């Protein structure tokens, strides 16, 4: 088996567990990586304690972007908004279990960028949301 395409990436790309949209939702955000055409949208429902109760992603793109979105969404259900704000590049790479070059990193981080832009209520997602401090 290929190091970069671990079973879980192939699997979650082919059959994502958290794909879809939520209507109504409390938060939704969509962005794309124009370089490769990856598009990710994430919808969230959030309870009165600022915890994520439900989450789904939609969109299309490469295996890395799709699998990372699926794994990220899975990981945040039940988490508080503050915990989500604290998520970093390293957390995504942990979920994927691989290392990535600069270009692919953008694919992997698109979902986190979208998630954070949504949580922070921004108009536009910026790379600085997922950059190392």
């Amino acid at each position: 088996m290929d190091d970069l395409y671990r079973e879980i990436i192939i699997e979650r790309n082919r059959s994502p567990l958290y794909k879809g949209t939520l209507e109504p939702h409390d938060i939704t955000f969509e962005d794309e990586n124009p370089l490769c055409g990856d598009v990710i949208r994430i919808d969230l429902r959030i309870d009165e304690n600022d915890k994520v109760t439900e989450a789904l992603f939609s969109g299309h793109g490469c295996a890395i972007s799709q699998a990372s979105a699926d794994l990220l969404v899975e990981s945040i259900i039940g988490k508080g908004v503050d915990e989500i704000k604290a998520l970093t590049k390293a957390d995504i790479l942990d979920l994927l279990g691989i290392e990535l070059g600069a270009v692919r990193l953008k694919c992997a981080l698109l979902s986190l960028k979208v998630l954070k832009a949504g949580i922070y209520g921004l108009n536009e997602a910026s790379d600085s949301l997922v950059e190392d401090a």
Partner: protein
Amino acid sequence: MGITISNNPQRQDFPILSRKISDNVSLVYLDSAATSQKPNQVISAMDAYYRNNNANIHRGIHVLAEEATAEYERAREKIANFIGVKNVKQIVFTKNTTESINLVAYSWGRKNLKTSDHIILTEMEHHSNLVPWYILAEELGFQIDFVPFDREGMLDIDQYQRLLENKPKLVAFTHMSNVFGTINPVGEMVKLAHAAGAVALVDGAQSIPHFPVNVSELNIDFLAFSGHKMCGPTGIGVLYGKIELLDSMPPFLGGGDMIKKVRLGSFKPNEVPYKFEAGTPPIAEVIGLGAAVDYLETIGMKNVFRHEQELTAYGFDGLSKIQGVSVIGPAVDKRGGVLSFVMEGVHPHDVSQVLDQDGVAVRAGHHCAMPLHEKLGIPASTRASLYLYNDKSDLDKLFFAVERVKSIFG
């Protein structure tokens, strides 16, 4: 020269080709449309320049400055000769194709284009031949018409002729598409442009490196190309312009060397080509490009082209046979050595990543041609591109790696 698709003595001139990507994996370089590799001859020409002759040019009265100036101007002659240009003053050095096109946009364009004007581009242009005109159109308000391409990735020449009825001031198009590989009928298109009263700019970034081009015969008005795609260094580009056009154009960048005289508050521009070469130019890079031209001429551009044609046919055939793979663009007899393809159900980024693990370097993305991809309805494609140092075995490894992509994502 003994360059054949299964036995390629030129390979040994390129040190990087013997590089290992990982323990047992050798480099298979199929990304020459992005940038070419460099032969020893070019690397050592620049090395020798820095070790023996380095000096600033044009104004120095010492041995090094004279040697550097002579080498620099000698390279200009070589390049002029390489593209069939007699008057070397028509060769302007820039940093890349992109700057060459911007130079024309800023200098010729701002002087000659007005709100009511039209210019013609095509749907298959590289961003470098789109964005400079968009920036200018925003400022001046002229209209841009696009020549469409058809299902095969060929320009619609009928539509081109209809657009010429708008009497455009400028027609700017690529000689060879960096995605489809389509070789456009430049001679015919220039002739039609002239008949309609337009000036014709040709983006030669993908043609000059790969086949013989005679600018004078084709009657091109402006031609832009880059050193780094033709065995030369980064940091050097060329703008060819007809002397009467260059002479009539206002300066672009202001500074040292582009002037005859400077007073407090006024200046008098120098003659071409110096008028457009402000500041210390990329001297070592010009000399490196001269060495690249020598190298290509030793092999012969006809041989380079024939070699690439054979490889392209082999690659087109091999890729097309793989189920789920579609090569985009025209039939092999209408294209140069660029093979872009899509794979059912696998994103180009994933294709390229798996290929990389086999040492096969290709490019995935929009290849700086987003409008082209948008029209095709795909966000990206995977592109294998060829040059004189490739051979059949490179393509065999590509086929093998593509099969592996299928098995992983299948």
